[in-house]
C-alpha cells in the first residue's frame, strides 16, 4: 500500500485538472462531486497506508522514488515521497478533514457562480499540502510549501472584484514569501554543509538526519543553529507567528470553508510539521528551541489579547488560531514534538468545527459577520449551536474534550522545562476560554440584535453543512483519547505511534501529584473564565472602546506599525531611486557622455572651415610641432 502513496496526491491533482480545464462548461454539481470524490479516494488510500504503517510496528520510513527532479554535479534531488508515522498522521488529517470541508463547501458555495473554479483551487491546495507532508526531502516540502501559499493566495482573493480581498491575498503571499526566503536559505545551508536535502538515506542520496545523529559526527552547534533559525523563519511565515502573523486575520476575506481548511486545520500547521520533521536538527540546536518557545508563547498571548476585543466572528477565530499555533510552537520549543503534533490534530478537529460553525452562522445571517448584530441564534439553529459549543469546550480545555488532553500535555511539558513559561501559558489559556465563550454567548445566547429582515431569515443550514459539523464535533470529543496523560493511562497511543518518526528532546517526566495539580489549575481557570465570560456578556452593551480596549480592538496597531516602518519607507526609497538615481544619476551620466561627445563634435567641426589659408596655416603649425618633437626625441 505504501508504494501506492503517489496516488494520494494524484487524485486531487486530477480533480484540479478536470475542474480547472472545464471550469466554464462544467455543471456546478458535477464539479462539486468530482472535487469531493477525489479527496475521498485519497482518504481511503491514506487509511490503507495508516493501517499498514501501524501493522508494521511503525518501523522506518518507506521511500518511494518517482523521478529525478534535479541532478547536477553532486547535487541530486529526487522527486520522492516518504511514508512514516508522521506523514501518515498528516495524510489522515489533510484528507479526512479536507473531505468534510469539501462536502460542506458543496452547499456553502452552491450559489456561487465560480463554484467549479473554487473546487479546482481547493483540490490543488490538497495536492500541494500532500506534497508538503509526503516529500522525502526538503525541496519537495518546499514545493508543497510555496504551492499551498499560492492556493491560499488564490482562495483569499477568490472574490477578485473586491480590492480589499485581493489585497489580503497579496499580503498573505508576500508575508509568506518573506518566510519562504528563510526556508530557502536554510535549505542552501543544509546543501552547503551536508550535500543533501533528503531526510533519510536512500539509493543515490545520503540522509541529512543520519548525518546529524551519526555517532562521532562533530557538527558545530552554530551550523545547526543557523539552519534551524532559517527554517524557523519559514515557519513563522506559514504558521503565522510573530513577526509575520498579520496576514492570517486578513486571510479571512476568503470563503469560510477555506478559512477552516487552509487557515486553521492544515496549511498553517505546516510550520509545526516542518519543525517536528526536523526534530533531529532542532535537538542539536537548543538555543533555537528556546527562541521557538519564546516566540510561540509570545504569539499565543498577543493573539489572545487581540481576540478578546474583536467583533468579527471570523476574526476572533483567526486570532484564536494564531494563538493556538503559538501553543504548538511552545510545545516544539520545549522539545515535545509529538505533543505539538497531537495538538495539531485536535486543533484541526475543533478549529475546523468552529470555522464551519461560523460559516453556518454567517450563512443564516445572510453574510453578516459582526457578532454585535447577532445574539440568540441558538433558538433557530440548534445543531450549529450544540456543535459550536462542543468546539468551544474543546478549545477551552474542559475535561473530556480533545483540547483538554492536548493542551494539558503541552502545559505539563512546559512546566517540566520552565515554570515561568508555564504560568504565562496558563494566562493565554485563560484568555482563550474567555474570548471563545464571549463569542459563543454573544452569538447564540440572549436576544437577537440584527435587523428584522435578518431575523426573519434565520434558519438551520442544510444537511451537507450540518453533517460535517456533527462528525467534526464527535472527533473534537474523542480525538483526545489517543493521547491520554501518563497519570490516566500507561499507554499514550499517539506518542507510541509517532515515536519511530519523531524523537522528543529533553526529559518530560512529572510526579503524578504534580500532574494532577497542574491539570486541576488549568481546568479551574478555564471554568472560571467561562463563568466570567457569561456574566460579562449576559446583557451585552457595545460602547465605543477606549484605552486598552481600543488598542486591542485595533490589534495593538501592528499593521499600522509595519506600514510606517517597512511599507512606506520602502516606497519612499524606491521613489527616490526611480526619480533621482535612475533618471538623473545613471541615465544622466550616460546622456551626459553623449552630450559631451556631441558638444565636442560641434566644436571640432569648426576646424573644417573650408578656407584653404586656414588649412595651410594648420599644416605649417603641425610640421613645426613635429620637427620640434623629433628634434627632442632624437636627443
Amino acid at each position, binding site marked *: 500500500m505504501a508504494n501506492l502513496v503517489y496516488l494520494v496526491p494524484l487524485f486531487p491533482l486530477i480533480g484540479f485538472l478536470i475542474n480547472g480545464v472545464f471550469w466554464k462548461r462544467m455543471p456546478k454539481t458535477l464539479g462539486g462531486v468530482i472535487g469531493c470524490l477525489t479527496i475521498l479516494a485519497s482518504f481511503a488510500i491514506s487509511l490503507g497506508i495508516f493501517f499498514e504503517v501501524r501493522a508494521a510496528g511503525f518501523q522506518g520510513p518507506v521511500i518511494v522514488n518517482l523521478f529525478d527532479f534535479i541532478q*547536477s554535479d553532486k547535487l541530486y534531488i529526487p522527486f520522492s515521497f516518504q511514508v512514516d508515522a508522521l506523514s501518515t498522521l498528516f495524510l489522515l488529517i489533510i484528507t479526512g478533514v479536507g473531505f468534510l470541508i469539501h462536502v460542506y463547501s458543496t452547499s456553502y458555495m452552491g450559489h456561487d457562480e465560480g463554484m467549479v473554479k473554487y473546487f479546482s483551487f481547493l483540490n490543488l491546495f490538497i495536492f500541494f499540502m500532500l506534497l508538503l507532508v509526503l516529500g522525502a526531502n526538503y525541496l519537495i516540502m518546499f514545493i508543497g510549501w510555496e504551492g499551498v501559499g499560492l492556493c491560499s493566495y488564490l482562495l483569499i482573493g477568490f472574490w477578485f472584484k473586491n480590492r480589499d480581498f485581493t489585497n489580503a491575498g497579496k499580503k498573505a503571499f508576500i508575508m509568506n514569501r518573506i518566510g519562504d526566503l528563510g526556508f530557502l536559505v536554510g535549505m542552501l545551508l543544509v546543501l552547503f554543509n551536508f550535500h543533501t536535502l533528503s531526510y533519510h538515506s536512500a539509493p543515490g542520496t545520503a540522509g541529512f538526519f543520519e548525518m546529524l545523529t551519526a555517532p562521532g559526527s562533530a557538527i558545530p552547534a552554530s551550523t545547526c543553529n543557523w539552519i534551524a533559525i532559517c527554517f524557523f523563519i519559514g515557519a513563522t511565515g506559514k504558521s503565522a507567528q510573530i513577526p509575520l502573523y498579520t496576514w492570517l486575520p486578513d486571510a479571512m476575506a476568503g470563503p469560510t470553508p477555506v478559512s477552516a481548511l487552509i487557515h486553521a486545520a492544515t496549511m498553517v500547521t505546516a510550520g509545526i510539521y516542518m519543525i517536528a520533521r526536523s526534530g533531529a536538527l532542532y535537538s542539536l540546536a537548543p538555543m533555537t528551541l528556546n527562541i521557538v518557545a519564546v516566540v510561540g508563547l509570545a504569539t499565543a498571548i498577543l493573539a489572545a489579547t487581540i481576540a478578546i476585543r474583536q467583533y468579527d466572528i471570523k476574526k476572533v477565530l483567526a486570532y484564536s488560531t494564531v494563538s493556538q499555533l503559538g501553543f504548538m510552537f511552545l510545545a516544539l520549543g520545549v522539545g515535545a514534538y509529538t505533543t505539538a503534533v497531537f495538538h495539531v490534530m485536535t486543533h484541526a478537529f475543533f478549529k475546523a468545527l468552529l470555522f464551519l460553525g461560523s460559516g453556518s452562522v454567517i450563512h443564516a445571517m445572510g453574510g453578516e459577520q459582526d457578532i454585535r448584530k447577532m445574539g440568540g441564534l441558538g433558538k433557530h439553529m440548534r445543531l450549529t449551536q450544540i456543535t459550536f459549543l462542543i468546539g468551544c469546550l474543546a478549545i477551552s480545555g474542559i475535561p473530556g474534550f480533545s483540547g483538554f488532553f492536548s493542551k494539558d500535555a503541552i502545559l505539563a511539558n512546559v512546566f517540566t522545562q520552565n515554570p515561568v513559561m508555564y504560568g504565562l501559558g496558563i494566562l493565554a489559556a485563560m484568555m482563550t476560554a474567555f474570548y471563545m465563550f464571549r463569542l459563543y454567548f454573544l452569538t447564540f445566547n440572549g436576544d437577537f440584535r440584527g435587523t428584522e429582515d435578518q431575523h426573519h431569515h434565520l434558519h438551520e443550514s442544510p444537511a451537507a453543512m450540518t453533517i460535517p459539523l456533527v462528525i467534526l464535533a464527535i472527533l473534537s470529543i474523542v480525538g483526545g483519547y489517543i493521547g491520554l496523560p501518563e497519570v490516566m493511562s500507561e499507554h499514550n497511543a499517539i506518542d507510541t505511534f509517532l515515536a519511530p518518526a519523531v524523537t522528543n528532546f529533553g526529559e518530560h517526566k512529572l510526579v503524578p501529584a504534580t500532574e494532577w495539580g497542574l491539570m486541576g489549575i488549568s481546568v479551574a481557570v478555564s471554568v472560571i473564565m467561562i463563568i466570567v465570560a457569561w456574566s460579562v456578556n449576559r446583557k451585552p452593551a457595545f460602547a465605543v472602546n477606549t484605552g486598552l480596549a481600543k488598542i486591542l480592538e485595533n490589534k495593538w496597531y501592528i499593521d499600522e506599525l509595519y506600514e510606517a516602518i517597512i511599507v512606506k519607507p520602502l516606497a519612499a526609497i524606491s521613489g527616490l531611486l526611480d526619480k533621482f538615481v535612475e533618471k538623473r544619476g545613471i541615465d544622466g551620466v550616460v546622456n551626459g557622455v553623449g552630450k559631451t561627445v556631441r558638444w565636442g563634435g560641434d566644436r571640432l567641426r569648426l576646424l573644417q572651415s573650408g578656407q584653404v589659408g586656414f588649412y595651410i596655416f594648420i599644416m605649417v603649425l603641425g610640421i613645426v610641432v613635429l620637427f620640434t618633437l623629433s628634434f627632442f626625441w632624437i636627443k
Partner: protein
Amino acid sequence: MILILLILIPFLTGILSFSTKGDGPKMLALVSTMLSLGVAGYVSGNAFSSAISFSQPWIPTLGTQFSLLADGMSSMLCLLTAIVMMVVMIVNVNKDVEKPGAFYGLMLLSQAGLMGVFLASDALLFYVFWELALIPVYFLCSKWGGEKRIPVTFKFFIYTFVGSLMMLAGLIYLSLQTPGLTSYSWADIARAGAALPADKQIWLFCLIFIAFAIKMPMFPFHTWQPDTYEQSPTPVTIILSALMVKMGLYAVLRWLLPVLPAGVAYWSDTVILLSVIGIVYSSCIAMMQTDIKRLIAYSSIAHMGLMCAAAFTHSYVGMHGIMLQMFNHGINITGMWVIVSMIENRWGTRDMTKLGGMATVTPKMAIALVVISLASIALPLTNGFVGEFMMFNGLLRSDSAGHIAILAVAGLGVILGAVYTLNMVQKTAYGTAPSGAAVAKDLSVNEYLGLAIIISLVIFLGVYPKPLLDLTSGISALLVH
C-alpha cells in the same frame, strides 16, 4: 552542414520577404520559423550525445574561418530562438503591420544574426553576427516603434555599438597574441587569452566585458533598456528581451570566462556585487512603474542580475542553473510580452492604473497572465524555480558572513519580485473592468495556440527539468573546470 541551415533559412526567407506583399510575409515568416524549429530540434537532439561542428575557410588573410559549433549551450539557445520566433509569428498571424514585407524580413534577418551569434566559434565571425543581429533591430525600432522611438533607438544603438567596438578591439588584440599566424578560432583565442599575464587580462576583461554588460544589461549599464523596450513594437521587444539579452550572457560564458580566467578571477567579486545590487535596485524601481512594459523591463534586469552574478561564482551547479534559466527566462518573458501586447491591442493602454477586470472580461487571458507571472516569480513546479534555486546554490560559495549576506540580498529579489508582479496581476486581472472593456474579446485561436506553447513549456520544464539539465551538463562542467 546542418548548422548552416539554421542561419540560412531565416536569412534567405528574410531577403525574400522584402519582395512579398499582403499576407505573404506573415506566412513566409511562419513557415520559415517552423522550419528553423525543426532544424534546431534536430541539432539539440544530437547535442545530447555530441556537439556538431562546421568549418569552411572564410578570409584566410585575416586568419578567420567560417566555423560553427553546436554544443549543449549553443543548441539550446538556438532552440530557444526558434521557439520564441515561432511563437511571435503565431500570435501575430491576425495582426497587421505597415510594410509587412520589410517588417518580417528584418525580423528574420535578426533571427539569422542571433543564430549566428550562438553558433559562431570564430571570434571575428561572432562579431559579424553580433552586429548583424543588432542592425535589423535598430531599423525595426526606429521605423515601427512608439512616439519617442527616434532618440531612444539612437541611444540604444550608439550605446550598444560603443560596447561592440570595444569588444572588437579586445578580440583583435587577442587574435594577435595567438601562437603562429593570426587566428580567431575559439580554441586559439582561449589559449592565447589564458596565457596572458594577469595584468593584461585584467584590462582586456574591462574592454570585452563592457560590451556584454551593456547587452545583458547589467546594472549600471542598463538605462537604454526600459526606454527601448517601451518604444519598440512588441515583437521586437520580444527579440530584444528574450533573445538579445541572452547574447550578452552567452558571450560572457563563451568568450570571457574561459578566455580570460585571471581577469575573471580579479573582477568576479565586483561583478557579483554590482549584479546583486542591481537585483534589489531594479526590483525597487519596478515597484514604482505604472506602465506594464517598463515594469517587465525592470523585472528582466533583476532576473538577468541573478544570472550574471551566478556566472561569476565559478560553481558547477550555479552554471547549470544559468543554462536552465537562460532558456526559461526567454520562454517566460515572451509569454509576458505576448499578453502585454494583447492588453495594449484590446484596451489601448499599458497603464496599470487604468486597467482591471481581465479575469471577468477575458478569463483565458487572465489565467495565462497568472501562470506566467507565477513562473516569473519562480514558483516551484513552474520553469522559473529550478534554475533560480540552482543559481542561489552557486551564490553560496562558503558559509562566511559575506557570502551569506550576498545570498540574502539577492534573495530580497524573491520577495520584491512577488510584490511588483502580484501588484501587476491584481491591477490588470482583478477588480472591476474599466468602461468599454466589455467588448474586449478573449484569446483568438492563434493567440491561444501561442500561449498554450508557452504555458506547456512553463509547466513541463518546471516539473521535469531533466532534458535541459542533461543537454547542458557537459558545457557547465567545462566552464568551471
